[in-house]
């Protein structure tokens, strides 16, 4: 009975996100194991929000998350590199207007 791997049950993994307070964007907290979504929420609350760290929690099956790969960071985000005109600093305004602040 004490042999290894007689106890093989492992619950699936869920990623946990929480909203720290009203109006704030959700943050990744970590992960939990749980048999279903409902239990995942309860486990996430007990693990990551014992001190009101969040007001809403999301749980997502970990295998449902698709992430960009760090090695491709260069080419993947490349399209953003040569569009300086997307930033306000690209534009000049009359001096008089600039001073007003």
């Amino acid at each position, binding site marked *: 009975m004490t042999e290894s*791997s007689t106890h093989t049950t492992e619950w699936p993994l869920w990623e946990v996100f929480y909203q720290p307070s009203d109006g704030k964007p959700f943050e990744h907290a970590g992960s939990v194991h749980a048999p279903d979504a409902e239990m995942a929420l309860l486990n996430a609350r007990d693990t990551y929000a014992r001190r009101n760290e969040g007001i809403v929690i999301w749980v997502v099956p970990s295998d449902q998350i698709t992430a960009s790969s760090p090695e491709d960071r260069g080419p993947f985000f490349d399209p953003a590199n040569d569009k300086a005109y997307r930033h306000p600093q690209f534009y000049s305004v009359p001096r008089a207007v600039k001073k007003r602040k």
Partner: protein
Amino acid sequence: MDTQKQLDDFQKRIDNGETIEPKDWMPERYRKQLVRMMSQHAHSEIVGMLPEGNWITRAPSLKRKMVLLAKVQDEAGHGLYLYSGTETLGVRRKDLIEDYIYGNAKYSSIFNYPTLTYADICVIGWLVDGAAIVNQTMLAKSSYGPYARANLRICKEESFHKKQGYEMLAKMASGTAEQKRMAQDAVNRWWWPTLMMFGPHDTDSPNSAELIKWGVKTKTNDELRQHFVDRTVMEAEAIGITLPDPDLTYNEETGHWEFGDIPWDEFWSVVKGDGPMNRERMKARRKAYEEGEWVRKAAKEYARKRELEKAS
């Protein structure tokens, strides 16, 4: 095999103070060392519930019982943050746990000592959690992102653990003669094992240099231990507790407290499994794991059935 170019690039990232994330390239040895270190840390948090759990039913008041319950629950939480972090390195939690319950994985030796009186609970909070804070504050800046973030979360909660213990001990140390004796006796028993928590001296610590090179750690065992001693001496004095080391002296030049020889023979015998509580702790963990199996199974089956019902 990791190529030299990959290793150099990796080292450059570390030296730049960059954070390594789960999907980034990392040397196989970095991954292995992290799995070992993080899972040991996780096992320690979990087994750490046992010496304190021992006193929940016999806490001296309802207030102390609530505090102890909350603290022990936090320890479970810390274990889970760390298991969650370790899993990002591509290992399964079940394998980590079984490697510890049936295999050779280690946990902190401090939890192989018994808690004989309630004063031990005070001292665990003050000294053991105090030492853990010193270590974890450093680890919160670790080069591996998930490990650093887990430690950051832990540190936020750990200061409550330390403060509640210190407050209780202060109260006990200013109580009746019997209470004072209990408080001092607990400190006498826990002081040296606590200093051993930082691990062997730097000269006997084969992993340290590599872990520091890779930014997993930023300070050596001896540096951390010294930092802990320096701040604990003052705290002991403030509540009328004597640290059981006649060699403890302040060095004006270095600004540090020098301390006596640590009983390393005892340390190695506890690490090898011959501490006062090693067998008991392993037995309790195995029992919890095996007796929990039907719950894991039943909950999984229940979830499967509900999924089927939804589908039909």
